[in-house]
């Protein structure tokens, strides 16, 4: 009986019901969309961070990561690589040779970090071939000394495809060596750090150039679904051929603590932001419901005078509130979820605002596209919180309505 | 009914002797049809009426007889379906909203049965509201409103908010507000509907006094016998037509 009367009351005061539900629904939807965008940004940062570090887990000779010294190399490469690959939770192990050196042409020289890679494995982390502007990628080249350079280096060194390029660097024994490469490809991404610093060759060619046959600088590991970087790092660390072999095993979080710091600080600000949005939403919703109920209280003063008892009035009020809340949540969720889908589908590219370079803790976020992610736990919490505010804000006036004398009720809330 | 068969011009209804010597309000063949869904409600079915300057006229009749509609059309709160209304020589039936507002401000004061006053303004502020709309200066407003408020017996209550005044006192504020701009006509829709009979009588006596002293024309609707017995002239409406006219035009 109460429920049917409440439902009819909502229909009878259509304008008011519309104002109330639209306000709550809209605030709630905005809240959901804000959360979706924040969570998505967070997830993308984690991904970009692991990519920037070179893998979820990294294996080097002990001390390499801190010193980047050319003498700190993984000497028995094949054994270690096999051991890493067979550790539990490893999806792909990516071997690399990293060389700090100068590339020179007749026009000058540029400092680079040359990466000797196995393209078939590297692709699990990132696909350099995608950004190839001219020439051919490592997998297509028939030369045994191929070199792919960033477009800016090529331009500054006034190079053309097929040109000879000299690399000067130290080998693991500390000898300064020079090696000859041929420019086979040019990569252009629009990101300055890549275009100005990228130098790629095959693992074999790099090993030959700096006398590192059978040696590696780094093994990047991508962990399988369901495994965590920490568990995989522990598993690799425990492997027989890794332990006591003078190697360091680190997760990307350990490798780039600045990035972790940034993500944590960003998370903290996101949290503050969400709390503030919620506070503003709470004010709006509490107000809306208080208004609706207060207005009803005045009307109910009349009902009360006609003999409807206080408890009955309060029950009717609460029933109306619950119905309105459910209606608002349903509409709001539909709106919010649509917003999420739209945001996720189209996205807002950060680079679209004319930014080429957005360095944060060593990773470039300029190619980030803001999208949206649903975190079901958070969305459920948000929904419950909104429901609590709406119903909570009706309790006080409902209580008042049940205890006021009719004459007072008509003047209440003035 | 004779108004349908009578010639199209000239007085046809009750006592309309004042028409020829320049009635203040002249209503001719007035009809008003409301549409409620598919239902047509004929609120006025052809009203002819003349009110002269300084008259104190009551429109009586049961609810639904068209009293409020007639007052609203004369005050340009509503538009006729057909027929013409001239007030002070001006055709009011075709005014737009802005013109209507200016017309009311200049020529007609309104008093409603309740909720006449702005709840957050004091009695004095409510009373001077129309003068403010006219752009009258603060000192002149004071000069005009204070004597009127004193005259209606609200001297000590000027700073009270409406909810601190009784129903009768609120209506007096509304009367002062209507009179403050010195309009030619005051239109009052059931001004005593929410008052007890003693207060109603007092209010009517006050209105009569003001009518006599200021020569302001009063046209009001009522079905209150206390009011009707004090009116100088009573027009009885029934089913959207003037059924009877009692008393004397001024």
């Amino acid at each position, binding site marked *: 009986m109460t429920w049917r009367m409440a439902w009819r009351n909502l229909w009878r005061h259509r304008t008011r019901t519309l104002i109330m539900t639209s306000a709550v629904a809209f605030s709630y939807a905005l809240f959901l969309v804000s959360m979706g965008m924040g969570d998505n940004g967070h997830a993308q940062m984690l991904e970009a961070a692991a990519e920037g570090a070179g893998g979820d887990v990294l294996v080097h000779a002990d001390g390499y990561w801190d010193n980047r010294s050319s003498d700190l190399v993984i000497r028995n490469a094949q054994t270690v690589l096999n051991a890493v690959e067979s550790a539990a939770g490893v999806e792909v192990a990516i071997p690399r040779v990293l060389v700090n050196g100068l590339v020179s042409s007749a026009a000058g020289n540029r400092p680079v970090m040359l990466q000797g890679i196995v393209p078939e494995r590297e692709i699990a982390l990132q696909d350099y071939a995608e950004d190839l502007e001219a020439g051919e990628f490592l997998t297509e080249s028939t030369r045994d000394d191929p070199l792919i350079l960033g477009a800016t280096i090529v331009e500054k060194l006034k190079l053309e495809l097929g040109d000879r390029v000299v690399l000067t660097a130290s080998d693991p024994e*500390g000898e300064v060596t020079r090696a000859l490469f041929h420019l086979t490809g040019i990569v252009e991404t629009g990101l300055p750090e890549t275009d100005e610093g990228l130098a790629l060759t095959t693992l074999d060619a790099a090993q030959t150039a700096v006398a590192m046959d059978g040696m590696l600088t780094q093994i990047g590991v991508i962990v399988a679904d369901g495994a965590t970087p920490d568990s995989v790092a522990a598993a690799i660390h425990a492997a027989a051929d890794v332990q006591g072999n003078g190697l360091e095993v680190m997760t990307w979080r350990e490798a780039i603590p600045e*990035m972790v710091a940034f993500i944590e600080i960003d998370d903290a600000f996101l949290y503050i932001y969400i709390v503030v949005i919620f506070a503003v939403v709470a*004010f709006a919703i509490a107000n809306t419901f208080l208004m609706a109920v207060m207005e009803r209280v005045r009307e109910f003063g009349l009902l009360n005078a006609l003999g409807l008892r206080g408890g009955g009035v309060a029950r009717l009020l609460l029933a109306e509130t619950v119905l309105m809340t459910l209606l608002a949540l349903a509409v709001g969720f539909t709106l919010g979820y649509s917003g999420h889908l739209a945001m996720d589908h189209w996205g807002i590219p950060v680079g679209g605002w004319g*930014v080429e370079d957005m360095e944060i803790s060593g990773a470039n976020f300029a190619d980030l596209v803001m999208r949206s992610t649903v975190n079901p736990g958070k969305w459920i919490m948000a929904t419950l919180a909104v429901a609590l505010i709406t119903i909570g804000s009706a309790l006080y006036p409902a209580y008042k309505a049940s205890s006021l004398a009719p004459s007072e009720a008509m003047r209440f809330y003035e | 009914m004779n108004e349908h068969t009578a010639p199209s011009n000239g007085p046809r209804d009750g006592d309309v002797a004042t028409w020829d010597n320049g009635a203040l309000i002249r209503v001719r063949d007035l009809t008003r049809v409301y549409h409620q869904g598919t239902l047509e409600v004929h609120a006025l079915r052809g009203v002819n009426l003349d009110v002269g300057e300084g008259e104190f006229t009551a429109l009586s009749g049961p609810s639904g007889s068209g009293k409020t509609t007639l007052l609203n059309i004369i005050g340009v709160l509503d538009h006729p379906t057909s027929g013409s209304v001239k007030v002070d020589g001006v055709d009011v039936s075709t005014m737009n909203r802005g013109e209507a507002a200016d017309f009311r401000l200049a020529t007609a004061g309104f008093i409603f049965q309740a909720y006449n006053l702005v*709840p957050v303004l004091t009695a004095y502020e409510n009373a001077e509201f129309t003068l403010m709309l006219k752009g009258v200066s603060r000192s002149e407003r004071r000069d005009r409103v204070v004597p009127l408020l004193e005259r209606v017996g609200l001297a000590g209550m000027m700073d009270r908010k409406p909810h601190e005044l009784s129903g009768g006192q609120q209506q007096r504020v509304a009367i002062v507000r209507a009179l403050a701009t010195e309009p030619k006509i005051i239109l009052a829709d059931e001004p005593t509907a929410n008052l007890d009979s003693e207060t109603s009588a007092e209010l009517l006596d006050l209105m009569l006094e003001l009518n006599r002293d200021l020569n302001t024309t009063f046209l009001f609707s009522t079905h209150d016998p206390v009011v009707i017995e004090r009116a100088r002239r009573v027009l009885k409406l029934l089913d959207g037509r003037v059924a009877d006219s009692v008393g004397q035009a001024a």
Partner: protein
Amino acid sequence: MISATIGFRNLARNRWRSSLTLGGIAVSVAFMVWILGFMEGWLVEMVRGATAVETGQVQVHTAAFAESPRADRSFALEPSLLRDLRAVDGVESVSPRIRLFGLIGHEEKSQVAQIMGVDPVLEAQTTPITDGLESGRWLTDDPPPYPAPREVVLGTGVARQLRVGIGDELVIFFEAADGSLGNDLLEVVGIVRTGNTAVDRSAVYMNLADTQFLAALDGEIHELTIRTKNFVRTEQTRDAVAAALGARTDIPVEPDGEDPPNDVLVARSWQQIMPSIDQVLTLSRQSYLVTYLLIYLVAAVGILNTQRMSALERRREFGVLMAIGMRPRRMFRMIVTESLVLGTLGGVLGTVLGVAVTWYHSVHGLNLGIFTDQGGFTWMGVAFSGRIYAILNTAVVIQPVLVMVFVAFLVGLWPALKSARIDPAPTIAGRT
């Protein structure tokens, strides 16, 4: 004026409703003040970190060097040059530099380094390099003569990678301007941590005279780094510098793709030298819009709702006002005024609250350590760690409340329009 009076009194009359609406507005405005204060803090710190040590605010190079740096692309440091420049309006101090890439080695390790030949006194005047000293001391103006090893100050990253400390000896190699190979023995006298990652990871500071000798560039330099008196007037100062030197303000583009000439000087602002920093600055300020949008949209719903509800409740009152002669336009203005009163009051309240919190954080800073135990992070090549200080400037204080008043105005239009269209007769009769 009566509109504002009615507006204020209606707010006072509906205490609950008004305080909740004002609360929502105030929280939004306070948060915007706070977040803008912090963003300004980050941005200023970022720009300062990126420019202060490395580029200053204005730099002068030859056009050829600006396009593509090479040892031989230098220009003569006439004795009058520095004196003339210092007389230019807006110039605080000037530091002449040699700037080259070279290889620096210790025992078996070597590393590519950015070699900066500087005048110890002028460099310390122009940049905050000496604030960054982590250990040891800065270069001396009057170093011991040969054959004593030459003094060198290393970026902290360079020192760590070479595993050297104060007093250790290093060898340096680079290609001199004439194509010969310069090399010398150095002694580490100081290690700097500036927070600028480019400097900390690869910079090697030496005496200007030593590098000029090694690079076969006697009396020549590669760049002039200028600190301006007023950070905001960088462009004007650049133009004045260019005028004084007869220099261009941009790198000339050669039609055939050749490098621009070496006999033309170019004066550029930090925005030109590091466009990416400028872009990020612009982007970050644009991103305020998104923050405004999301926060104020919710607040706007609150105001809109209050005003619609208020208009709904008071429709009979509005009907009476129109019946006694108020024009619809005036009614419209009255209701918009009420929204403005609401927005202004809430906005001022929020500004007071926001300024109080932001002021605290601008004096005491916000300890980033409470959010992370990983130390700091880097942004656009600038290290952030420890405390970050908010900045309270006019824009930070004024903008959020102004935007809120504007939002309140926009939001007030709809209920005002609806109320101005009230049909008085049925409204007064209670038939709507």
